């Protein structure tokens, strides 16, 4: 007895025959090729002196990094410099975020506050935070406060924009639902505004963090005695390309680790955020 219903579905995946093309086209192989090419090109550029003497070989950079780990540079070891930059970022970021996020929320929730603050904010917004460096030095001197000030400015704008827009762009239907369930304005804010705006606020924090990184580097390049920007600047004044490149490698690694941490934190803190393709 046979029937259509008894048809057996073969779910085995069809395996393509093994061939060289598959290996050549596989992602990991290509990554490996690309990375090898990157270091070979780098090495070639350095050895052939296309850019004059202003390029160090990858090997020299590695040696330089190794020395920096043990020998102090300008009174601080490598980790001391990393900590100096991180500390500035953490202080500035905390102040900026603590000021801007509540202000953005208040602006979105109350139109009178928005009417007062928005025009002033629109005046400040188009100025890149780095343009504030000079005035910060005039105000606070070349010490720590001026650097923290720049970071606060760099953090402030994206934080405020994101928390403001995060609340404003909430789907109005969500409010209707809460109201239909008998909620008042307080419930609306507590159960709709905050959870719905949280992903946007968090995205704002992420943008602020990368902006804070740029700011701290710029501030350290202009004037500093410690920090990662200072290392690269020192490399420039001493004409030691290995030092500059070593500084850049450390910057890349630290920035990468920070991004990784923040992304992980986001997954824990707001799992309801809809998936957007990662890159």
């Amino acid at each position, binding site marked *: 007895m046979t029937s259509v219903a008894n048809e057996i579905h073969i779910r085995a995946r069809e395996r393509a025959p093994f061939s060289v093309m598959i290996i050549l086209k596989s992602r990991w192989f*290509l990554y490996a090729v690309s990375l090898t090419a990157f270091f070979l090109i780098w090495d070639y550029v350095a050895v052939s002196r296309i*850019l004059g003497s202003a390029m160090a070989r990858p090997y020299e950079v590695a040696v330089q990094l190794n020395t920096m780990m043990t020998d102090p540079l300008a009174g601080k070891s490598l980790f001391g410099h990393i900590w100096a930059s991180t500390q500035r970022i953490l202080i500035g970021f905390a102040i900026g975020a603590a000021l801007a996020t509540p202000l953005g929320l208040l602006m979105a929730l109350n139109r009178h506050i928005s009417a007062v603050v928005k*025009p002033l904010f629109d005046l400040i917004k188009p100025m890149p935070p780095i343009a504030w460096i*000079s005035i910060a030095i005039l105000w606070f001197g070349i010490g720590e406060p001026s650097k923290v000030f720049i970071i606060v400015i760099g953090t402030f704008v994206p934080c405020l924009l994101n928390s403001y827009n995060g609340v404003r762009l909430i789907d109005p239907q969500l409010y209707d639902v809460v109201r239909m369930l008998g909620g008042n304005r307080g419930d609306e804010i507590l159960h709709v505004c905050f959870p719905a705006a949280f992903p946007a606020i968090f995205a704002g924090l992420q943008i602020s963090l990368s902006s804070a990184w740029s700011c701290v580097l710029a501030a350290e390049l202009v004037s500093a005695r410690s920090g990662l920007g200072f290392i690269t600047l020192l490399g420039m004044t001493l004409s030691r390309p290995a030092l500059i490149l070593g500084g850049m490698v450390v910057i*890349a690694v630290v920035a990468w680790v920070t991004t990784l941490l923040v992304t992980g934190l986001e997954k824990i803190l707001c799992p309801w955020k809809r998936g957007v393709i990662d890159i």
Partner: protein
Amino acid sequence: MAYEEVKVKTPLALWILPILSVTLFFGVWQAIVDFGIVPETMLATPLEVIKLFIVKLTDPNPDGALLWRHAWTSIQEAFTGYILSLAVGIPLGLLMGWFVVAEGLARPFFEIIRPIPPIAWIPLTIFWFGIGISGKVFIIWLGGLVPCVINSFVGVRMTNPTLIQMARTYGATDWQIFTRICIPSALPMVFGALQIALAYCWTNLVAAELLAADTGLGYLITMGRRLAMPSMVVLGMIMVGLTGAVIGVIIDWVEKHLLAGIRR
């Protein structure tokens, strides 16, 4: 008419408050300097800034160039870097989104360069290119490149898979799917990148000019600090903000007209 339009009047308070707050801001600014709460060596009054603005239109002293020349230099540098970053970043991102080989080869390069803020490249570029225009264009190019690549990559990846499957069913080649389906569907994201990249370029321009330049708006700010002229610093900051805002508006306008037929 099934429904009639309801006009919501903006309450008077919401009209007055913004004007009041801006006036108050400038008033307080003028007052704290006038009454000596903040010393004149630290902050210039708005009136002084306007005065300096008028003077700088005709007088190249004390920083060596007229105001419009500073602005023009900056705009030139920013636009060269911006256009180059668009020309490289958008095709690269689109190709990376669709072709596995392109992604495999380009992505590690990109991932290595991405976390480094363009500002960190400044010492190296000064070494490589000197303090001329090419170094600054390089920094600006790096700044604009990252958002261009990311947005066009994500744009292609977000193409509706049904459309791709349909095209395959009708026998379209990979290249045809890429040009006829993926690119048009990525366009809104790509145009989104135009604004982001511009903002990045403009920020990095200021950073590049702060460190090494002989004309340009960033240089104007630095000179203001060196000459201890707060009015010049503030003028430079305002000019940077203003020019950036104007360029942003122009790009926005161009984008709207180019995209008139495309659903966003």
